[in-house]
């Protein structure tokens, strides 16, 4: 019953990965590597595969990206590395994500332990939130010798990796394996601990050399007309429920309506189809020529048999009956369904964290600092793309910035001490 939900598309074999790597032109000053937000260096790891050095390829990925096996599966590569690929001048880009997946699967099969904890430098940092951004900060800091405590509101770590992205795109085993490695590296995760409620920012500041807030946008937005409607569920609420139950959800009707035109809406609609809901209609605000979801996701959603109607906004709700109007033409339609899922965006909950979040659900300035010199932000709440690979990039960058700050402070202290 849940097999369609749980089964990931097959990956490359030893032979087919080499065929794909053989298509790579091994470019000089490779554009793909420059286009990877996290500097995972695809040109370098593809070259290693090409020269039969899969272990070396795994080292390149892992040293640059703590979540390499996850990015391999969920990166919107059409916007990043593959968009830049020179091979496009001949036919189509190299399947960089696919090769990355092969290499990280190999890494797991060969039980490679690439990253090592740095020698302790006696410094401590606290991270609020264990999504991809928090996990990357933890990894970078641990390799540099910091002690790392992560505070996580939920019962499990991973943020949207665990509670959002569906199983057929990102198997939970992979997420658990990536997190396990980071725990083995020395991360101390405090589960079921909401910062600002169970423990306060001031406590974290008092006990750490720096605090990184990586809380993401973990709540769904709800359009006011849908409030308190028993037929309505939020996208991230639904996806989390399905992922936790491994697809064993029994309360689904014969037809469902999804509202939204982004990747989250596509995930919800496809998940519903994979759970055998017969008629799934996705009503999108954007028209197809301005669509937000990636081409890959849109294609998958269509292949799953979802009806996608573009350019419509909901204008009235009456119990299980929703009326939509087209944004430009004179057209109206009404759909009845006992399952209406809202995928109209996520919002940040920064209660008691002393962080300013603007209407774009991020801090109102570039960079990772805050008014408090000891407190930093990263991940989705920092400016930049809201994707996993950007969370990795932001995690690496903020970690470097904090390390520099702490090391500089130490040097200054040494100098002052020396002058006395």
């Amino acid at each position, binding site marked *: 019953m849940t097999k369609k939900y749980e089964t990931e598309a097959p990956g490359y074999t030893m032979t087919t990965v080499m065929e794909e790597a053989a298509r790579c032109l091994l470019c000089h000053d490779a554009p793909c590597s420059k286009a990877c937000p996290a500097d995972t260096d695809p040109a370098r790891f593809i*070259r*290693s595969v090409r020269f*039969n*050095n899969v272990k070396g390829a795994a080292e390149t990925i892992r040293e640059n990206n703590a979540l390499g096996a996850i990015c391999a599966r969920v990166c919107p590569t059409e916007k990043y590395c593959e968009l830049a690929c020179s091979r496009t001048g001949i036919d189509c880009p190299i399947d960089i994500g696919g090769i990355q997946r092969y290499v990280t699967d190999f890494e797991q099969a060969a039980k490679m332990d690439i990253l090592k904890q740095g020698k302790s430098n006696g410094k401590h940092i606290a991270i609020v939130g264990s999504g991809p951004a928090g996990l990357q900060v933890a990894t970078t800091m641990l390799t540099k010798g910091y002690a790392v405590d992560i505070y996580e509101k939920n019962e499990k770590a991973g943020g949207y990796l665990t509670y959002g992205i569906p199983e057929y795109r990102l198997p939970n085993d992979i997420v658990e394996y990536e997190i396990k490695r980071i725990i083995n590296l020395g991360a101390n995760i405090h589960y079921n601990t909401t910062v600002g409620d169970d423990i306060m920012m001031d406590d974290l500041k008092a006990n750490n050399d720096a605090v990184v807030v990586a809380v993401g946008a973990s709540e769904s937005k709800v359009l006011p007309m849908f409030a308190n409607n028993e037929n309505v569920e939020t996208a991230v609420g639904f996806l989390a429920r399905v992922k936790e139950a491994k697809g064993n959800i029994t309360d689904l009707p014969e037809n469902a309506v999804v509202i939204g035109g982004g990747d989250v809406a596509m995930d919800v609609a496809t998940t519903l189809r994979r759970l055998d809901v017969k008629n799934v209609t996705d009503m999108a605000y954007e028209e197809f020529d301005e669509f937000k979801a990636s081409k890959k996701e849109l294609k998958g959603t269509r292949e799953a048999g979802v009806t996608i109607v573009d350019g419509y906004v909901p204008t009235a709700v009456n119990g299980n009956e929703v009326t939509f109007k087209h944004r430009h033409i004179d057209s109206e339609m009404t759909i009845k369904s006992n399952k209406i899922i809202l995928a109209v965006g996520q919002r940040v909950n920064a209660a008691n964290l002393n962080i300013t979040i603007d209407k774009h659900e991020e801090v109102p300035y570039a960079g990772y600092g805050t008014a408090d010199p000891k407190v930093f932000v990263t991940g989705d709440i920092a400016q930049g793309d809201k994707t996993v690979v950007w969370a990795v990039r932001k995690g690496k960058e903020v970690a470097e910035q904090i390390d520099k700050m702490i090391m500089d402070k130490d040097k200054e202290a040494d100098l002052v001490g020396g002058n006395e």
Partner: protein
Amino acid sequence: MIKKDLSVDFLGVHFENPFLLSSSPVGNCYEMCAKAFDEGWAGVAFKTIGPKHFKVDEVSPRFDELTKEGTPFVGFKNMEQIAEHPLEQNLHDLKKLKENYPTKIIIASIMGTNEQDWEELAQLVTEAKADMIEMNLSCPQMTSHDMGSDVGTNPELVKKYCAAVRRGSDLPILAKMTPNITDMVPAAKASMDGGADGIATINTVKSIANLDIDRKTALPTVDGKGSVSGFSGKAVKPIALRFIQQLREAAGMEQLPISGIGGIETWQDAAEFLLLGATTLQVTTSVMQYGYRIVEDMKNGLMHYMEEQGIDHLSEIIGAANKSIVPVDSLNRDYKVYPKIDWDKCIGCGRCYISCFDGAHQAIQWNEEARRPTVDIDKCVGCHLCNLVCPVGAISTGEVVMKPGREGNPEDIKIESPRLTHF
């Protein structure tokens, strides 16, 4: 990133790793070698330096490639001779390289037309502070018959010229051998008798890779004509490995110091040359195709291999395969191993069926309905052609059986290692 000591000692010289540029355009001048050293090569056999009186005059174009289906550079044909740069400049570059890269190893490749040339060149490169001399006795396309492979196939000349170089220098001497010979042992022995300390091999194999079928001549076409000339790259690796094994098999040459050359491109190629007894490894064609950067994966991959093998020094595996490569008449012929077909992996292409019928023993039965092969063990001789042609690795080595009337326990038979089939 893994860290392992890749250093080797060869003819009394310490190399930080076994990887060297072989004498060719890839080590033609100071800037090239400097860049290669910066990217991790341990040394260079500098482009062959000839005597002043020999004028190098090259053709254009001068290369050709053998391809197979979509794969370029399966083999590479060239018509180059020796260094085009003037002698003084080459000597100057050697000296500057050693000055600026004291830990890298500079091997001066030289070639003369007579004893006097050889002796003088040996003196000059020794004065230029080279670490080692390599005698090019093997270029197959010299415009003079007093040079190159015409010399290398004549043991008497080889011995005489090695002795001349020995007179001119006290540096370690490598004699670079040609594969254009049935048995390399006499020439190698002659060079050692003459005073060489080790062997570098192979140089290029005489070849015609392709024809221009309209102009009706060999490629590359030079004003409507072509020539037989040297072939290198992946396609010559089997030939190189064979010569190296046969040198190390010869009586009294079991410990022969060898610098292995021919088609090296990956760490696996490197491991193969080491296992057959090469201590240093030289590379040209794959660098011409891909650049100096290939050394990164060769070094890193070799370190991972050392880790898997549980060794700390490459010296522990150099020559480790020599003893288990035996004459064909001493192989165990008492058993056969059947192919095992994994129907879950099989995609029903039928290639195994075609190859077994047309190229082997008609032992694969083809189920037309199911589009699946089965092995008829009465007909199967265990040749494993099917295993090689299957595009998805669905065929592997299966049950081992003793031939009728032969002694032995099938469980004691060592079939191929899982490395070749895993993941």
